[in-house]
């Protein structure tokens, strides 16, 4: 390829305070190429792309677009050069229609002329095979629709260079196929596409070349056909990683531990978040929960933990109905349950407190007297830090200062320490690097072998199928199927995630 590259970034450095997010990174992307940007969390992928879209300004280094040196002061400059970025968290205005979002920030006539605008949107949609309803409000859209809208929006601006930051994280397998068709279509039209993802199978499937980042530096750029997944992981992590999740044999006889009976939950927007959900969690098993984001996972966890009230239904824990009881009442009943919420620093831990205080938080009610006994907590904290290999300067560091993986270990360590019979975990490896993720999987397996029943809400279907014993699929608040993880396929789960009901029976028991 000797043509002028669409993007050439050289020696890019960017710091946030004392953290160097990008350290002399190089990246070259050609027109008509799908280029994957790969790296663990915190490797600097989003930072690099945000500099290309004018959100951040590099501290040093040079950026050329189609051979021309550029220095973006704002997103507007970047848009003018034909760069369009689809952010990981969609940048759409909820209460506006698709059409209004598309023309947002565009220059043009004084008035917003809806009719001609809608025609232009239809033209673009036809050309690239996209399907978007210009009059639909964003808050009424599914995640897939929102993403399509983001793509139409950048194409409307005449973008020829597309950046997608983890576009597949929130999509069902079927929606991902659709997205890949669109991306290939854009490639054929001569666009340059940069896709950030850490799902390696997708990288192999869609990309022409791959650039790997590690801890803010560029490791290498390679042609996809010349590389295999294990080598990519080694480049990302910097060492060999055993990619096998061990799964113990199914328990000889799992006893019923937790049973939900037709639980219906209505959320604060008066929408039905859980619709007659019934299932059983046994001892010594990991029950996975799959579903598109927002299918009721959060409400499921919080209802079991006593944080969300239900409209109707019953929840039996060791035969006792716990629905309608507060977390404190549940603890009083002698029920030991651990909860790892999705929002670790918001709900799970107090971010500004140190490890010791966060650990005392769960057990202080058992202490006598008014004054907290810190010594006991400190001892516990030391134990947890040692057992889970938590990296922290000392016991008095606020947990907010720890890395994502270590924060998760503190939380998990505290919950495991209370010797639970059931563990409810929501996206426990989200934001964690590969090494830390596998450590968490090991810890969950360890709990399973001790007889604990684990609910594992996950987003990566490969992990769900490898780690769990059974996988329950939620779609729009309903259980569309419960499958045996040893036999089910990704496609089958994808079908259920999209709302298809299970064909072979074995549904909610």
């Amino acid at each position: 390829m000797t043509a002028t590259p669409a993007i050439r970034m050289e020696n890019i450095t960017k710091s946030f305070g004392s953290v160097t997010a990008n350290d002399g990174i190089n990246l070259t992307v050609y027109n008509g190429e799908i280029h994957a940007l790969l790296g663990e969390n915190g490797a600097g992928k989003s930072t690099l792309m945000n500099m290309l879209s004018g959100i951040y300004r590099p501290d040093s280094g040079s950026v050329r677009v189609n051979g021309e040196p550029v220095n973006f002061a704002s997103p507007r400059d970047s848009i003018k050069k034909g760069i369009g970025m689809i952010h990981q968290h969609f940048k759409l205005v909820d209460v506006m229609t698709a059409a209004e979002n598309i023309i947002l920030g565009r220059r043009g006539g004084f008035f917003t002329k809806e009719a001609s605008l809608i025609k232009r949107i239809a033209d673009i949609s036809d050309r690239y095979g996209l399907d978007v309803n210009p009059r639909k409000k964003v808050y009424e859209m599914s995640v897939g629709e929102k993403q399509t809208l983001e793509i139409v929006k950048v194409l409307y601006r005449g973008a020829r260079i597309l950046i997608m930051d983890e576009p597949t994280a929130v999509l069902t397998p079927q929606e991902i196929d659709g997205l890949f068709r669109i991306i290939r279509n854009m490639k054929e039209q001569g666009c340059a596409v940069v896709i950030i993802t850490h799902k390696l199978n997708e990288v192999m499937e869609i990309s022409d070349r791959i650039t790997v980042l590690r801890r803010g530096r560029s490791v290498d750029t390679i042609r996809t056909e010349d590389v295999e997944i294990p080598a990519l992981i080694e480049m990302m992590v910097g060492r060999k990683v055993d990619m096998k999740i061990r799964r113990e044999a199914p328990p000889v006889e799992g006893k019923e531990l937790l049973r939900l009976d037709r639980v219906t939950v209505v959320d604060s927007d008066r929408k039905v978040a859980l619709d007659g959900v019934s299932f059983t969690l046994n001892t010594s098993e990991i029950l996975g929960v799959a579903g598109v984001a927002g299918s009721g996972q959060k409400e499921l966890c919080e209802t079991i933990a006593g944080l969300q009230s239900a409209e109707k239904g019953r929840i039996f824990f060791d035969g006792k109905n716990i629905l309608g009881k507060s977390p404190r009442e549940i603890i009083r009943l002698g029920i030991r349950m651990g909860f790892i919420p999705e929002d670790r620093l918001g709900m799970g831990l107090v971010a500004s407190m140190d490890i010791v205080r966060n650990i005392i938080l769960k057990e202080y009610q058992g202490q006598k007297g008014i004054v907290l006994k810190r010594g006991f907590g400190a001892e516990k904290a030391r134990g947890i830090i040692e057992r889970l290999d938590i990296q922290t300067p000392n016991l008095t560091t606020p947990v907010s200062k720890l890395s994502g993986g270590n924060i998760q270990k503190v939380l998990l360590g505290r919950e495991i320490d209370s010797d639970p019979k059931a563990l409810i975990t929501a996206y426990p490896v989200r934001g964690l690097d590969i090494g830390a993720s596998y450590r968490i999987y090991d810890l969950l397996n360890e709990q399973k072998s001790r007889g604990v029943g684990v609910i594992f809400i996950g987003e990566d279907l490969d992990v769900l199928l490898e780690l769990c014993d059974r996988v329950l699929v939620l779609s729009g608040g309903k259980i569309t199927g419960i499958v045996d993880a040893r036999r089910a396929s990704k496609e089958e789960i994808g079908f259920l995630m999209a709302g298809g009901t299970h064909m072979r029976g074995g549904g909610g028991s």
Partner: protein
Amino acid sequence: MSGFLAAAIVAATPLLFATLGEVIAEKSGSLNLGVEGMMLMGAVIGFTVAYGTGNPAAAMIAAFAAGGAGAFIFAIVTVSLQANQVVTGLTLTIFGSGFSSFVGDRMIGQSVPASVLKFFAPIDIPLIGDIPFVGSVLSGHDAFVYLGYVMVIVLSIYLYRTRAGLNMRAVGENTAAADASGVNITLYKYAHIIFGGGLCGLGGAYLSLVTVPIWQADVVTGRGWIAVALVIFASWNPIKAFFGAFLFGALSILGLRLQSMGIHISQYLVDLFPYAATIVIVIIGTHKNRKEDLPPGNLSEPYSRENR
């Protein structure tokens, strides 16, 4: 009855200007609680200029500029310096109150020149004035009231039919999305905070130039706070702001009317009506279902592009 409606309009007009001003500020993402202060600044400067020049147009422009100047302080502190909007707005109210006492001190008891009074005399609109009820709302008012009507229509069109209005609403709803789309956040915030402040200044000037054309200390008497509540009642919509202001105008004169009809009711109770209604409205306003009726998504949140 038509006399009651006409009087309600007069009572409603300062509220209408202030509510529209706060709608503009809040729609672009700024919760400026300095409405009361900006109204006082507009009231005293409008009166001073009218008193000194006898020119009604100059008085209105000056009142707009005074409210805008108060809002400009708010914009510097909250947009550029990223300070807390609630605290800054409250401080602006206190500042405006002190400013009006200081500037107006020597004018207490003075009245507006005849040329200005004449300009703000009621004007009848032929034909429309003859329609029962509606006629007394639409016709027979002063130029200031008509300007308020025009503002309601112009601002509705601006908000919902123009590109600038769309961008401005996006800034208030989702600042990061507007920024990523190439909207100049700082410019939009400054412009709308200042324009909103200008409208509040005009609302204050109506009180000192038309309602009671004699300077007195503390002319605004809490109307700025009612306007803040009316913004919620109006769901951030200019048309609904008109109806909200009209309702409150009617409530605030209801007691006087009842008394003149021979129904005896304590003046203190009468004075309480609009404020009691404000509390009720805020409670009702909190329980809205339509997404479009909710406060702008990023209201009162400072925005910095590189914040991680």
